[in-house]
């Protein structure tokens, strides 16, 4: 008996070893359907284990210029090796965001910014990239190929998007950040900011951009992550201490302060000397409120800890009429919401864009918050809030009867049936459904009930089958419509345009970019011009049929025109543009990129005669 057992033990060990080896050589699953991942391109230098990687996959982003499922001008081009760099120019193989400059802030559909936005938060768009290996980053290089200078912040996340189990703790750390600065010219550059050292390995990098100083769309080709596999020792060079980072680290405290413990602290200390407080407390209540209006949210929370009087002021719900939580997306979680709940019962404008991803906010936490704070809500921004699901929209429709402004931009994970609840918000004046999966029936229902709509964005809504039916419904029901975004609405025809033009005479802004099914020969653009005299912004981007007649009709009828985009048409001549510029005195943006009859010389001549107009002419080489 006894010699058998050691032998058996050896054999079982052999079994477990073989099991482990089989697991290691098991084939990785075929990644045929993840067609956006690219072979990771990594080099390892043997001496000091520095790893250089291109991005493996684009995990999330807020907007892009290209079409869903395309590889032209879409964010997915940011993964993998560069396709264009070091050439400069407007190429299809790059990643392009949807907007640039301040043009979208100047058009009728621009939304008013929130109060209390901290001045160091200026990010307009973001993109998150996953890399193959987790490293301690030493450098992040961004290869920009056209109009560089948009990147203003780089962050790293401690979570590994490829690990099967959800991470215990998710931390975002800012590697680098700077105010938007003007970069002259449109030439390609390799952007190499100095990043700070962090204490956790990462393979998830986030870039935040601000394009307001750019002359045209910025285009990014690739992102390179340099890092060490092992934690580097004490480095000889001191890491740059960014003033903004000190701010960031302090944000954590705001969700940890409880009133009870503070009260105990204050009551236990006896104040021997009563120092003079400058008679601050003699000021009228309203004046103190006015002063505190100028503080940012974290400062308000810190001030609440100083004394009872200021605590009373800082917890006054009137301080929280506008609540902008987007700048704090990296730290905002259920606990924060719960903490703020008591103060936010009167909140009217709430911005939760970009927040809550990777498990920070749960459906239950959001629902709780909305149940307490939703009754007075007038404006709700939920762009890129991927924690939302159908239940959340149901709660919104029940708890926010006064809602007038709802932004669900890029919430592409929301199931189509969630949008059925939006129709219950009959007071809606502004609705943004850019890049969502809303379907035809839900949208028709929304249009039927929300007759107060003034601003509607249906850009890149790919699940809508027939845009003519949608346009017809808009023309019938949404008589007050002032702005309409139909960017990339693939099958709208002249019939839909006719219904729109006759049904919504108040239209001031119409984006029909990349709608290939509209043909100028049907007279649809001429009809638009004649029936919409209030037009201030008209985008006919990449509609190859726009011709001189259309421009002349616009010149004759739409004298208030401010922004016009006719990219890519061969049939518009400089002469008709001259007529347009003479007639439309307010025109400030004219995009004639890739219009074959308008060469650079024609643009220069027009600029001489009309110096206030920004005439954009992009190029590929």
């Amino acid at each position: 008996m006894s010699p058998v057992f050691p032998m058996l033990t050896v054999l079982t060990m052999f079994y477990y070893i073989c099991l482990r080896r089989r697991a290691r050589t098991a084939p990785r699953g075929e990644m045929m359907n993840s067609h956006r991942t690219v072979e990771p391109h990594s080099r390892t230098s043997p001496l000091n284990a520095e790893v250089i990687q291109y991005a493996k996959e684009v995990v999330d982003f807020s907007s892009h210029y290209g079409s869903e499922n395309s590889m032209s001008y879409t964010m997915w081009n940011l993964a993998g090796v560069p396709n264009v760099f070091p050439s400069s120019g407007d190429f299809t193989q790059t990643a392009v965001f949807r907007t640039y400059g301040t043009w979208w802030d100047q058009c009728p559909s621009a939304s008013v910014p929130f109060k209390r936005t901290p001045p160091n938060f200026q990010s307009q768009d973001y993109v998150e990239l996953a890399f193959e290996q987790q490293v301690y980053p030493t450098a992040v290089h961004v290869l920009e190929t056209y109009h560089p200078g948009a990147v203003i912040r780089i962050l790293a996340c401690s979570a590994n998007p490829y690990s099967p189990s959800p991470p215990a703790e998710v931390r975002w750390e800012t590697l680098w950040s700077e105010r938007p600065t003007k970069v002259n010219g449109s030439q390609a550059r390799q952007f190499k900011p100095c990043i700070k050292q962090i204490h956790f390995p990462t393979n998830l990098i986030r870039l935040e951009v601000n394009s307001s100083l750019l002359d045209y769309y910025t285009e990014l080709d690739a992102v390179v992550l340099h890092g060490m596999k092992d934690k580097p020792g004490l480095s000889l060079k001191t890491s740059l201490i960014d003033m903004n980072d000190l701010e960031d680290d302090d944000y954590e405290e705001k969700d940890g302060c409880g009133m009870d413990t503070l009260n105990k602290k204050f009551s236990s200390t006896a104040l021997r000397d009563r120092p003079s407080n400058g008679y601050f407390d003699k000021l009228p209540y309203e004046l103190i409120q006015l002063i505190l209006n100028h503080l940012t949210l974290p400062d308000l929370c810190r001030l609440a800890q100083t004394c009872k009087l200021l605590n009373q002021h800082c917890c006054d719900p009137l301080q929280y009429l506008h609540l902008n939580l987007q700048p704090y997306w990296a730290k905002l979680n259920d606990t924060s919401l719960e903490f703020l709940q008591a103060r936010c019962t009167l909140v009217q404008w709430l911005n939760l864009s970009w927040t809550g991803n990777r498990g920070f906010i749960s459906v239950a936490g959001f629902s709780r918050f909305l149940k307490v704070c939703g009754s007075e809500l007038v404006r709700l921004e939920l762009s890129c809030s991927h924690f939302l699901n159908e239940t959340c929209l149901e709660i919104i429709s029940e708890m926010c009867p006064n809602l007038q402004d709802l932004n669900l931009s890029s919430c592409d994970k929301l199931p189509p049936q969630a949008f059925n609840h939006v129709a219950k918000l009959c007071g809606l004046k502004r609705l943004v459904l850019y890049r969502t999966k809303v379907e035809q029936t839900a949208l028709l229902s929304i249009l039927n009930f929300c007759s107060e709509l003034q601003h509607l964005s249906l850009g890149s809504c790919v699940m809508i089958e027939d845009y003519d039916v949608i346009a017809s419904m808009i023309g019938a029901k949404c008589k007050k419509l002032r702005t309409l975004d139909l960017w990339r609405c693939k099958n709208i025809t002249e019939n839909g345009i006719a219904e729109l033009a006759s049904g919504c005479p108040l239209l001031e802004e119409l984006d029909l970019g990349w709608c290939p099914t509209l043909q100028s020969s049907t007279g649809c653009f001429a009809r638009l011009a004649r029936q919409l005299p209030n037009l201030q912004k008209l985008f006919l981007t990449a509609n190859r049929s726009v011709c001189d007649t259309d421009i002349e009709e616009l010149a004759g009828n739409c004298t208030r025109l401010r922004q016009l985009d006719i990219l890519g048409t061969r049939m518009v001549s400089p002469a008709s543009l001259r007529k347009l510029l003479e007639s439309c005195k307010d025109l400030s943006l004219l995009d004639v990129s890739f219009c074959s009859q308008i060469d650079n010389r024609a643009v220069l001549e027009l600029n001489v005669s009309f110096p206030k107009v920004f005439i954009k002419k992009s190029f590929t080489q």
Partner: protein
Amino acid sequence: MFSVLSYGRLVARAVLGGLSQTDPRAGGGGSGSGSGDYGLVTAGCGFGKDFRKGLLKKGACYGDDACFVARHRSADVLGVADGVGGWRDYGVDPSQFSGTLMRTCERLVKEGRFVPSNPIGILTTSYCELLQNKVPLLGSSTACIVVLDRTSHRLHTANLGDSGFLVVRGGEVVHRSDEQQHYFNTPFQLSIAPPEAEGVVLSDSPDAADSTSFDVQLGDIILTATDGLFDNMPDYMILQELKKLKNSNYESIQQTARSIAEQAHELAYDPNYMSPFAQFACDNGLNVRGGKPDDITVLLSIVAEYTD
């Protein structure tokens, strides 16, 4: 007693587990290739019609023809496109369309946005991507895509127009593509027309392409070419040249491809030679003789074992 039984079960599992590890496929460790994966060793050559030194852009253009060769983990893909020259009369450069089409196909393959068993999908997606370009592309071309699925050893093809491919095994043609013509000298073509001419310009949908799938063996020779080759060289001449192919390394394939292309190029300018094109014309009542000057693009591939 009871514990001996449970130990015994453990032992049996260990022994059987160990035995199954002696599978020769898995023995190599995670290198991934192993025997059984096929690949294509491809070389290309061509001549533009007007002796122009065509700018050799990525994927190579010969005159108005274009081609590409791309490699992906799951498949090897190649394709040719023959730009329709008639656009030149309207001020449009015909090589722009075919070149952009082939480069887009190449990019699609490299990024894995395709399914090996659906080559028509590659054409469709590529054509749609052309429409997403800010630059207003105009023109038309034929297209022929050949995909070798590494693991299933099947060749999937899609052919729209009069370019095509031959598969040669043991000195004989075992598969060939069919020409798609609307009428004489007017092949099926993908096109993007200016808006005023839509409806007037011939434009075939990518779905109209012929698609075939069949098994291939190691050593099979695949010749993909535009009509510049097939209209000037009959099968027996091509087979003669292919017989000279000794082995499957790149240099010899390159040499054979070049000799085929050169021969076709010479024959094209021979006024007395009865080319297949002239023969076909005569069969249709047109009394012509001689070669057919045209852009010639030849991609020659051999099915071999895939090495990374």
